[in-house]
């Protein structure tokens, strides 16, 4: 077998599971990884030590009184538009929830601090700005509502929608 054919087989064998895993994880809201103290990037920004929390100053916009949905977008991002629709709809539907869209390119400080690797990245913040859930890719509306249900104790009746997770 020639080197080219072997390379072709290797590509197909390696890329297929990567693609399957990527697709399954798209838009899934998970608890954020906690590695606050050890991260070297936070050491370089002494006045911004907290990786797990965002303030109104960080967002340059007020936090929602109940929760805030944050979306990192970029110019070359096809699913960013659909994500904007989902999060915007939810923010309009659930009282006290703010929606903030951040152009990743303009806020590389936040991108590095939160280790945002791709767009769209979605963060669900509690009333104090603590990151409770995060997702890469376009999340499904019921999942966003369920994530809000965990942040807002007795507000959203649809918080049972995500019981299967």
């Amino acid at each position, binding site marked *: 077998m020639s080197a080219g054919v072997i390379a072709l087989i290797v590509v197909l064998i390696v890329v297929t599971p990567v693609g399957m895993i990527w697709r399954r994880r798209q838009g899934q809201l998970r608890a954020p990884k906690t590695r606050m103290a050890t991260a070297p990037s936070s050491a370089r920004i002494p006045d911004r030590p907290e990786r797990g929390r965002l303030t109104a100053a960080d967002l340059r916009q007020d936090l929602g009184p109940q929760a805030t949905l944050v979306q990192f977008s970029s110019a070359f991002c096809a699913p960013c538009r659909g994500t904007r629709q989902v999060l915007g709809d939810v923010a309009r539907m659930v009282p006290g929830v703010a929606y903030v869209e951040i152009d990743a390119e303009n806020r590389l400080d936040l991108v590095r601090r939160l280790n945002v*690797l791709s767009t769209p990245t979605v963060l669900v913040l509690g009333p104090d700005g603590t990151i409770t859930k995060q997702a890469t890719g376009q999340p499904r509306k019921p999942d966003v509502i369920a994530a809000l249900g965990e942040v807002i104790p007795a507000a959203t009746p649809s918080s049972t929608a995500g019981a299967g997770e």
Partner: protein
Amino acid sequence: MDIDARGPRFSAVITTVVLALALATTSMWLLLAQTLVFAVGAFAGLRYAPYGLVFRFLVRPRLGPPTKFEPEAPPRFAQLVGTIFAAVGVIGYAVGVTGIGIAFTALALAAAFLNAAFDYCLGCQMYLFIRRIWPSSPETPAA
């Protein structure tokens, strides 16, 4: 400008087949042809991209009306990334370093295959990655 979302996906399938053939046969000429196809999409726009034209005039008339539109910029940027990778492969073959030709054909194929099979635009994702490691704001990693 918005485009029919099926166009880039169709183009990704053709690109995958062409790059798979180019890789299996370690053909510099086939890789060069794909490089030029990438470059037309990247520099002239997807409207003039060869596989996009095939989609528009031969495939789309047979399909129903488009249901999903997307902006042109992300797939067009991905074509630019594809152009660079494929061009490096061509240069590798041209100067006699077959390993470089194979490696970069394989990388371009991996991206095209992810796009075709999983709708994952690796080229688009590389944009933020490049911006992150290409600091325009003050950052001193060596400090």
